[in-house]
């Protein structure tokens, strides 16, 4: 049984540790985001939508994986909201919910074949970030 949307939003708030109510809607997170163009929803939208309990659309969006976890939004947010943590929480919940992964070990040999220089760090990160 899937939880109601509002309750999932509450889980997002809880596991992200982010106080989304502190947001004053200045948009600095989105102004600073290097992955802005790659993502359908932008950091400030994540914060606002989670605050409003509207997480379903966010959970469906695959471009959430494009967040670089560069923490620039966390660093520069004047309100200490930590938008990247909200994005991360959405991604984790989406992966847990769907049971699937955006990245499977089967992909690795192909990637390495294509580019032998890929460092372990990238693979491990991708596993951690993209898998359940």
């Amino acid at each position: 049984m899937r939880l109601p949307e509002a309750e999932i939003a509450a889980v997002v708030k809880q596991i992200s540790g982010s106080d989304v109510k502190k947001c004053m809607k200045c948009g600095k997170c989105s102004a600073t985001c290097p992955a802005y163009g790659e993502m359908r929803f932008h950091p400030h939208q994540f914060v606002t939508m989670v605050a409003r309990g509207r997480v379903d659309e966010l959970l469906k969006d695959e471009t959430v994986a494009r967040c670089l976890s560069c923490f620039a939004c966390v660093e520069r947010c004047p309100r200490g909201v930590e938008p990247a943590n909200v994005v991360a929480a959405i991604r984790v919940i989406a992966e847990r919910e769907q049971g699937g992964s955006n990245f499977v070990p089967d992909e690795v040999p192909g990637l390495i074949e294509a580019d032998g220089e890929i460092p372990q760090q990238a693979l491990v990160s991708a596993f951690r970030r993209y898998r359940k």
Partner: protein
Amino acid sequence: MTYSYYPGCTLKTKAKDLDFYGRECARALGVELEEIEEWQCCGAVYPVVRDEIATKLSAVRALMAARDEGRELLTLCSACHHVLTRVNHDMLTDPDVRAKANNYLKPQVPYAGETKVVHYLQMLRDEVGFDVLAKAVKNPLKGRKIGAYYGCLLLRPSKVMAFDDPEDPRIIEDFIKALGATPVVYAMRNECCGGYVTLKSEEQSRENVQRIIKNARNHGAEELITACPLCMYNLRKFGDGGMRIEYITELLYEALGLGSVQEPGTGADAGTPADAVCGAGLKS
């Protein structure tokens, strides 16, 4: 001074240069790096969500190992430094994480964040001293215009990392200066290279890297240095080739007059893809 040293998996495989030259230089500077026994991969990314404990445990083990030796824990890879520092901060400040982690690991003496995690650069600045380092330089890199590329993980979030001013950092510039070269300050040095997203979207990384390299070049940089294997990968892969990219330790090795550094790809960095996966502990 002896440090417990945490190389991390990438430094054992793809980034052997970062590790090898780092150890050589430390020895030359009279700093002892003792690799901790049976370390495990730190996980490469810090698990931001609060309900993850298991993914923090290998970092806690490493921190605890250093604590048991009574030493500070030295890191070289930006990602490892990031993960270890943040997990340590959790252990220090978050009673919930602390209780759970100790519960899992059941150490003889519970761990509460006592270890100090030190990056190689901080060791050079605070333990060796950049002034002493400058005197140890046998082969000053005169005339070379070098840009520091910090990336994200060393600097942010600054409240936890406490590495340097997150928006106008100077530690690598001071390092470059100590080696006799001219540091080039450019605004993009703390912007993301694309990180692991490169596996999903090369385009995104290419765009980021090219913006960084353009900005560095516009400010007069002729080469870049970094402490992160993933940054190195992205910068080399998506750079235009005209910009030489090196690890901080390679530059240091050269300046200390310990020998010349081999060209990228031909040096110690070699390994099979299988090594990469196994070494990274992905089988678990």
